[in-house]
């Protein structure tokens, strides 16, 4: 598993973990949402600045492990300038990739591909999912005008 470990903690992931993108909190966000993973104790805050139906920037404030930090960093990177539809599509791909299910390989997901190694470690899948679940919940809530409560990867 030393190799499996390196499979999970790939260079790309370690690089995102050490130098996470979107780390600085957006000051006037259109959406703010907290996410929690009580099983791990991980907590994040996602802030989104919209530009019409596009995401202008995302900040991810994360007190979590390397995997959740790296995943949040990738999220911030890839979502910039994407439409809501595109972001949801990517979130779906991330989920499929992490759970070892099939997904549309033609879609360019950039660094995110490196998260694939996580699916060898079922307990860690939730870490990688937290920021994505939180972002999608935030967008849905914004669209439907629902009350924002903290998202969680449990349940």
């Amino acid at each position, binding site marked *: *598993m*030393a190799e*499996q*470990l390196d499979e*999970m*903690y790939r260079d790309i992931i*370690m690089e995102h*973990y050490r130098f996470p993108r979107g780390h600085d909190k957006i000051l006037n966000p259109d959406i703010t949402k907290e996410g929690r993973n*009580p*099983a*791990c*104790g*991980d*907590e994040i805050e996602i802030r989104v600045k919209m530009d019409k139906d596009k995401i202008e920037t995302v900040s991810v404030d994360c*007190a*979590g*492990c*390397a*995997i959740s930090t790296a995943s949040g960093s990738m999220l911030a990177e890839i979502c910039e300038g994407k439409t809501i539809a595109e972001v949801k599509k990517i979130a779906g791909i991330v989920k499929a990739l992490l759970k070892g299910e099939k997904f549309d390989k033609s879609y360019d997901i950039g660094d995110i591909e490196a998260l694939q190694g996580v699916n060898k*470690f079922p*307990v*860690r899948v939730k*870490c990688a999912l937290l920021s994505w679940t939180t972002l999608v919940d935030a967008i849905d809530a914004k669209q439907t005008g629902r009350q924002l409560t903290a998202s969680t990867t449990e349940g």
Partner: protein
Amino acid sequence: MKVIDQNKSHLKSENSLLSVDNIRKDFPILDRMINGHKLVYLDNAATTQKPQTVIDAITSYYAGFNANVHRGLHTLAEEATSAMEKTRDKTAAFIGGVKREEIVFTRNATESINLVVSSWGKKNIKQGDRIVITQMEHHANLVPWIMLAKETGAELEYIPIDQNGYLNLSNINNIITPKTKIVALTHMSNVLGTINPVAEIISLAHKNNALVLIDGAQSVPHMPVDVKTLDADFYVFSAHKMLGPTGVGVLYAREEILNEMEPVIFGGEMINEVRFDFADWAELPMKFEAGTPNIADLVAFAPALDYLNKIGMDKIRQHEIEITTYGLEELRKLDFIKIFGPDNVLDRGGVISFVDDKIHSHDLSQYLDSKGVAVRAGHHCAQPLVKLLGVTSTSRASFYIYNTNDEVDQLVEALKAARRYFVNG
């Protein structure tokens, strides 16, 4: 490096009081290779490994005398019943010589506590009564009381912990008062390792006419426990944390209390007489053991108790003091590691929770595993406590009779290597 090595050999010779080398031979799993390294199993507070005698007892049961117990008139049924009931005798003897009727078998310590809460608790706790627990309880001794307090309208009061991981008893006379009906606390914390002054708290509770439940999940496996001397009213623990099989929990309660308690699970074995509109209960302890018991594992718990008795609980405690002393010493040398719980090793069991100041406990544990070192990471089923400690999770190394100072060294080496991997990589 030289200094450490000297330390090691010094402490090893003391360890040999317990002849750990011989003990290790009895545990087949300890030969297991993990990611190319010999398994270093330091997750004993979660569950311990099993000696060959326990494994063999299960095999012999199924290959030799498996049958449903009680009321069976054939040879296999009598053999199974008598083997299972022998375990009850041995369990009663193990915790200080209580009556066999006072030993109720459950699935695990969690179910034992829930049985007390559902039966004794719902009957005896009323609005305005006070339930006292501590801030260092495992969810098993926390969530049932939260729910009972909600349901009954009783107050739930916490005995706080201090900076060093001890219970803060300075205000105890305002916490345990005549309003208090039950005090429930852990004998030893599964996160901090703290051994609580339970005798003192029991005596104070009894002065206030409150009963006391002691969660012994982490104490009974690791030190001599005499529930009569402690004067505990309820005492619970799990077989799987003391060399025994999974699926066996114990509830000790004083006979008078058990007699007053109603069963919460109804069915076969636990009844005396049933008519279409009527049922009454069998004698103790069967009243609380409905349906076919976990016979094989109950039978196989006996050799676990025999094994512990053969070594001696005093010696086991001594061994854990030694290895924990060594572990604390070595971990303290790592300036990036913060350790939780009492400094004085005599006040703690063989459990060391810690965090690396840069590496999340999940990453750390995963890395340690890649070196064959098994520790647990997370909230250890004590979310509120871990939050109090100001962290989101910890890593926890916990020791048992087969662990060696060498293994502590391997943990330390792996922690250093993790720094190279995650921080200075």
